């Protein structure tokens, strides 16, 4: 379906360990994923599931103490693992770029935003100030900012949250990257602004033919813009499939629980109890063989203690990690 050339990013067997006083925290375990040109991969999960750590590992932005292991992290055919930090920084911001949740902390408050945009182009492309400014003005206009020339001279605090997030998007696009990783790009925004920013991301993705990895906890956003979905829980991808497969036939008990939790106007009956997942996320410190979801799972049995991490296939392109066969999981859809 997709040729090698279209696979922009391929990650195989990625793990991130963080030493903590009480042992080793396994933030990410054995994650495989790939990002395809022109497509959107959504990584979904709740706080602490490892979705941001996965992105930071790809971008080589992990906190200093963290240890990364992977069999492959390939971007456009280059194995990123073998690059020196210097060689890596020539790629980050250039061939791949990241958009963070809070634009206020990712923009430098003491420089005009123009300087911050232009610097990227000058550094990676070796362009002159004028060329960089033209590119910045073009992109600001492209992300829907009126009078970009004026905005470029302003400082981050002079702009609204929605504007700042548009500027972050323009910044990520400065060097025409092949891959954009957006971590909760609309979480801090109002719903109406959220819709605008998501539209913008989608349009730009098509126009620049980029691969997009979207990290979010919001299943509504995921359903509306993702092509493929990876559901993470406690550091592992527990289910992966196309957007249609995941929402039409959620298979892992965690995925089913997550979808059941959210109120769905017109579908969930008003003022009735929502589905909920009892308990809390387990500690990620120390070795934990077996399924990490078992202490919250209605279907847990003895063998979940040491099994449950083998990938099983539902159908082409849709797989999950659980000891139970599909029929069993489907037969006991969580009652709502």
């Amino acid at each position, binding site marked *: 379906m997709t040729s090698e050339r279209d696979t922009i990013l391929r990650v195989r067997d990625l793990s991130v360990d963080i030493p903590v006083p009480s042992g080793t925290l396994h933030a990410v375990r054995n994650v495989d994923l790939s990002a395809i040109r022109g497509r959107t991969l959504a990584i979904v999960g709740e706080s602490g599931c490892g979705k941001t750590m996965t992105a930071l590992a790809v971008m080589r932005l992990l906190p200093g103490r963290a240890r990364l292991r992977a069999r492959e992290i390939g971007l456009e055919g280059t194995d990123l693992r073998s690059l020196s930090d210097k060689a890596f920084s020539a790629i980050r911001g250039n061939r791949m770029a990241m958009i963070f949740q809070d634009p206020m902390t990712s923009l430098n408050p003491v420089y005009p935003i123009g300087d911050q945009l232009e610097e990227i182009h000058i550094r990676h492309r070796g362009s002159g100030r004028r060329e960089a400014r033209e590119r910045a003005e073009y992109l600001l206009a492209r992300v829907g900012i009126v009078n970009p020339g004026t905005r470029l001279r302003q400082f981050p605090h002079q702009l609204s949250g929605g504007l700042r997030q548009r500027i972050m998007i323009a910044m990520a696009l400065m060097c025409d990257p092949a891959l954009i990783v957006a971590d909760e790009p609309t979480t801090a925004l109002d719903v109406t602004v959220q819709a605008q920013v998501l539209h913008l991301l989608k349009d730009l993705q098509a126009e620049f033919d980029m691969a997009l990895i979207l990290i979010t906890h919001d299943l509504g956003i995921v*359903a509306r813009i993702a092509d493929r979905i990876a559901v993470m829980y406690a550091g592992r991808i527990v289910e992966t499939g196309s957007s249609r497969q995941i929402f039409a036939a959620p298979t892992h008990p965690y995925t089913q629980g997550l979808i059941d939790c959210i109120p769905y106007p017109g579908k969930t009956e008003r003022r009735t109890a929502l589905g909920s997942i009892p308990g809390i996320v387990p500690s990620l410190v120390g070795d934990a063989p077996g399924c990490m979801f078992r202490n919250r799972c209605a279907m847990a049995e003895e063998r979940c203690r040491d099994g449950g991490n083998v990938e099983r296939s539902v159908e082409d392109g849709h797989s999950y990690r659980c000891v139970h066969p599909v029929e069993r999981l489907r037969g006991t859809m969580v009652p709502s």
Partner: protein
Amino acid sequence: MSEASAIASPTVPVLECDRVTRLFRVKRGLFETPVALRAVDDVSFAVHGGEVLAIVGESGCGKTTLARMLLGLLPPSSGSIRFAGRPMEGVGRSEIAARVQPVFQDPYSSLNPRKTLGQIVGLPLAVHRIGTEDERRARIAEIMELVGLPPHLVHAYPNQLSGGQRQRVAIARALAIQPAIVVFDEPTSALDVSVQAQILNLLMELRRTLELTYIFISHDLAVVEHIADRVAVMYLGRLVELGDTGRIFEDPRHPYTETLLRSILTPDPALGLPPGPFDGEFPDPLAPPSGCRFHPRCPKAMEHCGATAPEARTDSSGLVECHLYNGKSHDR
């Protein structure tokens, strides 16, 4: 479950806002003369006993300022707020607190990190001098059980708790002195979805068992649709629409309400993104547009919308403030 109409028809509303306005004087620069910001502008509505009234709108629409006035934390610049028919000016600070209690968005900053859960939940009892020490201890245990906190946590500190547990503590604290009304300001938006569902279920159950009245401020319209009986929509300080939840979601009248509803992203992969709501920025609240405040962004704006402000119109479907409904019947 019963619809809003099934709630015992009240004679006197538990809470009433009558033309409530709140101004702030804002300086735009060091040497500029202050400008008046109308954070809440001429808002009137009534809250009936036992209902859940949601207040929705974008940031800067005045919903939090309104909540602070309802809590007695901020006096209105003009207009009046009445509790069970009595004007708030005549009700003492501690009596207001005994009737209306808040639950805030962020359970990380709204709990004192140096106090144990028992102290946090017990503080309102101590302040209002309710019961003996033993009675208070029993009340704390009772209320903790009610909100689903295990009893051994009574000596725990907030930093030992998860986000969901902290929000349960905030709810327990609000309920300790048995208020009639609880004002929630974005109570679940800092929580994970699985925890949000637990908390929403708890809130619905508490309202039933304790016959509470909720004022529920949120920007999450799917959550509002699920738990509210009535919805008030605010835009730039104005109350632009008010009505039963079912009616608002099925047949919104104000174009702003329509826009808000279109931006709800239900988890249906067949739908794709809704058409972009509107371009253009949220207007500067210090220099709000003339006429109808929504007209620069309104897809249905007519010529006179920018010239004259529409009047609020109240009928059996609720309240709407839009020229489309001024002066004519709207049996569409």
